[in-house]
């Protein structure tokens, strides 16, 4: 069990480096055990630096940078053990345009192996999907599904943001 965990852990660390650099266009990562002699009791620490930056702790990263780092770790785990499907609820909330595009690019890449269902307010994310469901409450307190055209949904989403 320890052997198996160590193997997986190294795979995740390697995947994390590649997903992080894909999302940030560069940078440095490290995933390490706090107690290497006792992997199954140990903690796992994350070190991540966006390109050109030198801050020492994750806490110094911005909200958007932390969201991108978390996404990199999530996708790293999905790379090592793909889940058949994955539901993501507003994980793009903190991302600006550039970061949303990078997130969408990696999402499309991973969509070859995993079925993604994303809940979003972000028109750029909507741009990337194949199927769109609109949820509304025409009657107060009662939800229903409606078909939405991409253009209308994006317009609404853009109206949402402006």
């Amino acid at each position, binding site marked *: 069990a320890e052997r198996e965990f160590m193997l*997986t852990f190294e795979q995740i660390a390697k995947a994390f480096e590649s997903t992080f650099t894909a999302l940030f266009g560069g940078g440095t990562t490290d995933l390490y055990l706090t107690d290497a002699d006792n992997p199954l009791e140990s903690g796992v620490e994350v070190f991540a630096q966006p390109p050109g930056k030198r801050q020492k702790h994750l806490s110094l990263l911005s909200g958007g940078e932390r969201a991108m780092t978390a996404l990199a770790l999530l996708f790293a785990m999905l790379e090592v053990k793909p889940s058949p*499907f994955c539901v993501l609820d507003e994980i793009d909330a903190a991302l600006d345009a550039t970061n949303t595009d990078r997130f969408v690019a990696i999402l499309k890449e991973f969509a070859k192996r995993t*079925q993604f269902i*994303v*809940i979003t307010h972000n028109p750029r994310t*909507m741009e990337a999907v194949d*199927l769109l469901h*609109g949820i509304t409450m025409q009657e107060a307190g009662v939800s229903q599904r409606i078909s*939405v055209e991409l253009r209308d949904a994006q317009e609404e989403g853009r109206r949402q943001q402006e």
Partner: protein
Amino acid sequence: MHLNSVAMRGFKSFADHTELEFGHGLTAIVGPNGAGKSNIADAILWVLGEQSNRAIRTQTSQDVIFAGTDERSPLGMSEVRLLLDNSDGMLPVDFTEVEVYRRLYRTGDSEYGINNSACRLRDVHDLFVDTGVGQAAYSLVGQGEIEAVLSVRSEDRRELMEEVA
């Protein structure tokens, strides 16, 4: 294995029967605040056998049953059905299409079923246990939860990675 569709009625704000189909690619669920989008994520978790109230934002298990509005009475039951494509045989049953359902009555009685054959909650768990679905924290990221991936205790992060192994 992938999701074909989810259907619900009486589940949280979905008083009336509602069905969503999922394509093979990326699906997005959109709409205004409070419309019911996250409730759909809750429904998927719930029909897969979720037992933690916190995971679906409830305080008691009956909170998933439509509570009524100023115009409508509360309902007595909540039901969710999940239809899966099993052509790759990932699920340990001899069907290419698998439907899982779960019902909760306001009395507290629960019903579970696989392909219209009643079963126990444990059977639903067993169906998915080797697929990484539902249990794996990284196959559903709830609203506001992405930050948690970084801020959990480092031991919890190791446990999360143990699930990947």
